[in-house]
């Protein structure tokens, strides 16, 4: 193991990790979905880092964003086909890092409906008649959380010290704290919202239409050799624009040209004029290699359907938050125009009305929605401190003070 770790630039890493897999509803009860449909069996891909204490009081669940996966930290073994790339929140998770794997037992599972090892439209149907495709039932954020709940039970964890996540992960954090209040001691929803606005749904719809307009999509029945790559790439480009900010894009690209000194005065698909065009095409291409088009449809739909107030508070956000028990740390980013600060403030307002213990901060950062994934001293310190105090509080309340 260590021979690989030596090769990594950052010594504070959990090192080589393995993707694991958990299947439930194999023979027993199927998972009842919010749509009323049943799903069985259900597999979740997941990773864990650090160790569970004997008191089982140090578990932190991390929920990934839209197209993320369970690989939060460390590296997959290059000898076993690992990419050598660190997990998506390597900055945040590891020994001595804000979510300190020397202290906490960290779990991340891939969302239900995704294509990174969990059951979704790209999975084989149980009856052996091929892939699910559009036969896969529509899943919701709540369904994803219910599936995660099975995993947490399977891991023998009675209560999570914290549930942490940004964007769609933040929606799951909120759903967790209302759905299973007794299981969530602390919650950190980052750069998120209690429900999608028309603008959010509009962007997702454009992305879905891009996929469905691709002739290769073929109502969800495509093969590896004929997948709707163009549509999926365009969908990703739309997403990427919403994750950045005007200022971040101006700084990163401006109006600079890509590998040329003058405009081409054509529509060359291989050689675009502007750097930003080149960047988006690259992001689109890269995404097609790793993500399934149908999964993208399902997951964006889940985010669009999410409505915390309707689901848990009969239309009242304060009503929903009165179901929760967790102590909350809500964080927004000043340049996030996908889920702007006022959306987080709505959440905080509801938490205050419901008498929740809540902290809130808007972090000044000009990277747009993606800020929560990037290096940020302030974010790191807030999360580290909040988790530290939450653990101390939990242990004090549990009567075995540290």
């Amino acid at each position, binding site marked *: 193991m260590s021979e690989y770790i030596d090769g990594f630039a950052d010594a504070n890493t959990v090192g080589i990790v393995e993707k694991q897999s958990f299947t439930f509803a194999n023979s027993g009860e199927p998972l009842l979905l919010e749509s009323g449909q049943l799903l069985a069996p259900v597999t979740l891909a997941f990773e864990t880092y650090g160790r569970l204490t004997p008191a089982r009081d140090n578990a932190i669940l991390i929920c990934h964003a839209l197209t993320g996966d369970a690989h939060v930290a460390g590296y997959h073994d290059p000898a076993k086909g690992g990419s050598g790339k660190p997990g998506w929140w390597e900055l945040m998770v590891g020994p001595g890092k804000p979510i300190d794997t020397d202290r906490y037992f960290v779990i991340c599972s891939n969302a239900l409906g995704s294509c990174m090892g969990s059951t979704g439209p790209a999975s084989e149907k149980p009856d052996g008649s091929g892939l699910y495709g559009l036969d896969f039932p529509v899943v919701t954020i709540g369904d994803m959380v219910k599936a995660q709940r099975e995993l947490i039970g399977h891991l023998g964890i009675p209560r999570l010290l914290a549930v942490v996540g940004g964007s769609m992960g933040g929606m799951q954090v909120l759903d967790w704290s209302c759905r299973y209040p007794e299981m969530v001691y602390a919650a950190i929803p980052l750069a998120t919202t209690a429900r999608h606005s028309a603008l959010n749904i509009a962007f997702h719809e454009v992305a879905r239409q891009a996929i469905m307009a691709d002739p290769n999509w073929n109502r969800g029945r495509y093969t590896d050799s004929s997948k709707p790559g163009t549509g999926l790439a365009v969908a990703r480009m739309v997403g990427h624009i919403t994750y950045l900010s005007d200022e971040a894009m101006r700084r990163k690209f401006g109006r600079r040209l890509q590998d040329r000194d003058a405009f081409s005065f054509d529509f060359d698909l291989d050689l675009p004029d502007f750097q930003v065009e080149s960047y988006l095409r690259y992001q689109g291409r890269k995404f097609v290699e790793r993500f399934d088009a149908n999964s993208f449809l399902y997951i964006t739909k889940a985010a669009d359907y999410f409505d915390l107030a309707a689901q848990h508070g009969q239309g009242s956000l304060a009503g929903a938050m009165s179901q929760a028990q967790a102590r909350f740390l809500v964080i927004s980013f000043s340049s996030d125009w996908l889920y702007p600060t006022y959306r987080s403030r709505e959440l905080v307002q509801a938490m205050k009305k419901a008498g929740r*213990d809540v*902290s*809130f*901060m808007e972090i000044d950062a000009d990277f747009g929605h993606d800020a929560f994934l990037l290096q940020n001293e*302030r974010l790191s*310190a807030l999360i580290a401190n909040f988790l530290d105090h939450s653990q101390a509080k939990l242990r004090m309340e549990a009567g075995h003070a540290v």
Partner: protein
Amino acid sequence: MRFDLQQIASWIPQGASVLDLGCGSGELLAHLQAHKGVRGQGIEHGEDKVAQCIGRGLSVIQGDINTEILDYPDGRFDVVVLSQTLQQVYKPAILLKEMLRVGRRGVVSFPNFSHWRIRMQLLLSGQAPRTSELPYEWWNTPNIRVITLKDFRAFCKAHALPILEEAALDTDYRRQDGHVLSLWKSWRARYGIFLLGAR
């Protein structure tokens, strides 16, 4: 802890729930949490100060006290504190009424503008006074108004805000020691602290 905050803390019962408006870096709340088992909530505008509060394990919301207070239900807190901030509030009557709506008691403290040094400065120099408590020039001060003990008593009377206790403090700026005055308060007090609430 600063002497004025010690005085405020002495008025807050064990185990109370406390809202601190403009809590700064959380000095008072941290003290109350550690020594009085208080369940505290802070509101603070400055990002750095909010971060310091969270670093101390306090619950704090970044925002404007005038609007943040509106979200709380009636009687949510035992005590609501407005320490050294009144001089920066645009609509004090509204804020104080809100304090006594969401809390059973309110604590208000401010630098006393009728201290003899201030009176002398104005009398002798003819310029807007500057003191260690109100250290700004007229053109760069965040303090939009200056208040004397007498002014505040009259204000409370006019707005039907019952004063339960009052302490006039002589303490050096940000020092931990000082004393509560009983004589010549209007002239000698650097700070006034008032406990408001229904009798």
